[in-house]
């Protein structure tokens, strides 16, 4: 028996690490991975709550999050490739203009 709050705490730690990664990482791809980390953290709390409330729809939400994450990964990585092609850098600090 693990208290629900442990799961939530783990989920919170993962989410926090994601936010922190977004703040301190410079590589766009790593920043993108931080987003995925946040999504995973949230997914864990969904599943934990689903188990806690005995409601399967919590797990369904995880699927939707995954699908959205997949769509986001496809588009986001395509954007990253396009950015790299035009600027030849992956450092976000150097990608601060909408127009070259």
């Amino acid at each position, binding site marked *: 028996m693990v208290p629900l709050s442990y799961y939530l705490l783990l989920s919170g730690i993962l989410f926090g690490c994601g*936010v922190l990664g*977004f*703040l301190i990482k410079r590589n766009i791809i790593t*920043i993108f991975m931080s987003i995925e980390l946040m999504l995973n953290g949230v997914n864990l709390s969904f599943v934990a709550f689903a188990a806690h409330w005995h409601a399967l729809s919590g797990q369904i939400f995880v699927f939707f999050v995954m699908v959205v994450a997949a769509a986001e990964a496809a588009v986001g990585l395509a954007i990253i490739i396009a950015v790299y092609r035009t600027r030849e850098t992956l450092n*976000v*600090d150097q*990608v*601060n*203009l*909408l127009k070259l």
Partner: protein
Amino acid sequence: MTPNPYLWLIPVLPLAGATINGAFGRRSSKKAISAIALVFCGASFAMALWIASGFSAAAAPYYFDLAHWIRAGNFQVDFSFYLDQLSLVMLLVVTGVGFLIHVYSVGYMWDADGYYRFMAYLNLFMFFMLTLVLAKNYLLMFIGWEGVGLASYLLIGFWFTKDSAAAAGKKAFIVNRIGDFGFLIALFLIIQHFGSLDFTRVFAAVHSLPPETEGTGLLTSIGLLLMVGAAGKSAQIPLYVWLPDAMEGPTPVSALIHAATMVTAGVYMVARSHMIFERAPGALTVVAVIGTLTALFAATIGIAQTDIKKVLAYSTISQLGYMFMACGVAAFSAGIFHLMTHAFFKGLLFLAAGSVIHGVGGEQDMRKMGGLRKYMPWTFGTMTIATFAIAGIPPLAGFFSKDEILWMAYASPHGSWVFWLIGVITAFITSFYMFRLWFMTFFGDYRGAAAGDAHVHGGHGSGHGHGEPHESPWVMLGPLVILAVLSFVGGWVGIHHKFDFFLSPVFHQHGVLEIKVATAAEEATIAAMEKLELTLTAVSVAAGFLGLYLAWLLYHRRRDLPEKIAASLGGLYRAVANKYYVDELYALLFVQPLVEGSTAILWKGVDQSVIDATVNNAADSARHVSDNVRHMQSGNLRSYAGWVAAGGAVVIAYMVWMGVR
């Protein structure tokens, strides 16, 4: 009989036609456009006939709830339709005459630019008019009311490249707005006091109120305001000025909207609200006085007009005055009866006039016509029937309805001999100017332009190289003939008050108002009344014939006389010929102050220095603030993330604090 569940199709079918033609007409062939317009309108007419054939007085009125619309607490307005004898008559008149005029339009408008537009507008008009007629509550009626106004505006301004047509459209729209303003306030009063706009509920509530015999009260106010609306739509004093100008529209439009159907909406509305008017004798008297004055006033203007359509326009105003006179003396069924016969013969007159205009290549000035009897025999024949009908010569339709109105004006408890006398004088004048038109147009010699000098009228008639006047095609003559038959026999339904009895469930069902003839117990009184009625009838028929004789004398026998009379009358003639300078008076009294006031106060004062200044200042300050704030938007992704994280922390802190507290 169960109520016909397809009643709602009647208005919706023309709407479908309008939608199809409006959306796809630009790229469709004219044949397809005509087919769609005619099929949908004709289907509507067929539906009306079908419903009429299954109509039984015992089951009337029927209600049909189509859909919910407004539901706010106890107040509810639905898309629901109402069918009783009154709306049935209107339904048949509108769909029947409307369909004939659709057919006619195919011939008349075939060569016009924007043919599809015209047909779509006509169908749209049918939709709104039928909504108006079938509505079960005042708000739905108001929708139809505004909708026909819109269709009327679009069709008057159909040749919108012509300044006068565009101006006429705007004039009609604006003048109607004044009337609608009154109508709307009446509706607000009804909502405030009766909490509903539904006919049955409002009338049931009104029924329990005592008649306001002395002084004025709520019902009188409502009645007067409704009359303001009716005066706007039905071109009564003082709001009649738009109708003559509306003749800028194509002639089928004048026939359909500005003679047969839309302008009678006011009469229908007053008749529909008879419960209110019956309990407000003051309002009733005002209606009668306005109607009587309009009848006389417009008739006198009609004498001096030379434009064939203008004559008919003033004649329409005058006849509408008759209808209001009938309503004003609480003889609503007589008013509706005249509405029906008028729809036949005035529609016919306009269509025949259109045929004449078509035949002579767009000329509208009667002084340049003449002798057309030889060139266009069918038009002449039908026009003759219509003229005799409007002049009140028995046994044509106009005789019965007009005679009934005149008799009611005299005999009704709300009536008076003054109304009757003015009515007879108007009948005489009507007869005179109509026969004047008849003689000037069809008799004598053709005074028009020679071959090749075709005056092209508006948008119609490109490719109409005109020489000799010619008869119109059968697609136009067909409706003329049918309407001629109706103008001839249409009045016979009024013999022995059959029409009255048919409508009596609508107007007398509460048994408050009884005509003297119907209630009088003594045989002697009845006999005396009948004798009196015959005498009065004889007088009005004599007036009609007197007008015929005078017109014959002046415009056929002694052509030189009119000039001399006009010269000897001098100022009076000029006043009449210039429509009593009413337009100029309105311009001086209302339009000019309004324009100048708007320029000085509203535009320069309010708009520029208050509204514009406010907006500009707001924009300026926004720019100043943004100028300072924009440095936050550095373009650095991580900075944005920092802001978001800080914001998230604040939100979490707030939520935790709320939770702890």
